[in-house]
């Protein structure tokens, strides 16, 4: 069962929800404000886990609302902590979507795709069977699949608020396990189901 959070609740630090665990970084690094999520951390390391999806083959997706210049915040898969994860972000300075892995604090850029961010764009990153990492924006494959074995036993995912403060950063987060052995093209079917869920609204936060 996928985890979903639309952040429709009273203003609070993200870790005030029993579903979110602050892994590293300052308390309140992400904060629910006006039914969306703010990045309130300018630190280089910060991460939250959502409920463990219990499979290394999983996805995270979120609706990106606004992104600040110099922002370094990610949504993550195979996320151990703020120094060890695979993540996706929109980097406003270069006007592009990016997929990174961070290994013991070192960054490796695995792919990028230039596009103008439209508030409400849905970014989706998956770590699929055979260790294929892929990024989709509004359902279209934009980066990958990239063959990547780093952290391929890690079952957790979440978000990484970091580097630059940003109000109204994301909304409608979702994470889930992928069916074992399913290939990338078929997984797009699952993703469309996720979008439909998101459009329908939910609040498991």
């Amino acid at each position, binding site marked *: 069962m996928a985890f979903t959070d639309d952040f429709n609740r009273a203003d609070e630090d993200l870790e005030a929800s029993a579903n979110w665990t602050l892994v590293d970084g300052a308390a309140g690094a992400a904060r629910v404000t006006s039914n969306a999520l703010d990045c309130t951390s300018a630190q280089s390391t910060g991460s939250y886990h959502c409920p463990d999806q219990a499979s290394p083959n999983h996805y995270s997706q979120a609706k990106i609302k606004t992104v600040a210049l110099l922002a370094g915040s990610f949504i993550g898969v195979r996320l151990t902590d703020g120094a060890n994860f695979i993540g996706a972000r929109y980097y406003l300075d270069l006007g592009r979507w990016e997929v990174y892995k*961070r290994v013991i*604090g070192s960054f490796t850029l695995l792919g990028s795709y230039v596009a103008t961010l439209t508030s409400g764009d849905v970014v989706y990153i998956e770590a699929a069977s055979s260790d294929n990492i892929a990024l989709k924006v509004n359902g279209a494959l934009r980066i990958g699949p990239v063959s990547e074995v780093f952290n391929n036993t890690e079952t957790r995912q979440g978000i990484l608020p970091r580097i630059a403060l940003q109000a109204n950063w994301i909304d409608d987060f979702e994470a889930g396990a992928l069916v074992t052995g399913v290939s990338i093209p078929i997984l797009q079917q699952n993703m469309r189901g996720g979008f439909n869920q998101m459009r329908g609204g939910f609040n498991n936060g």
Partner: protein
Amino acid sequence: MVYYVCAIIGDGSENDPYRPDIADHGDFSVASLPSNADGSPAASWVFAVSPVANAVGIRMLPSLPPETASTAKVALDAILVSMGMIPDIAKPEYAGAIAMISRDFG
């Protein structure tokens, strides 16, 4: 799309991440860029795909349509040998390149 054998540049920092040199020319995806335990690149080259054609100084697979998986693999191997590398399917950067070629050239 254009396929490249790229050098790996960067120092792993936020502002200068490890990346293929084609990354500074436009959109791209790597096939596989393995890391050492300390996060540094475990390979000296990386296979990548990009819409950018003829990026100066980056080794591009020859474009001889209709390219096939077989001819693309021969071209990749020739480039690697010319660079003093031994194509080795046990190495993730090469296995990733072959997987990308098999997928994209069918």
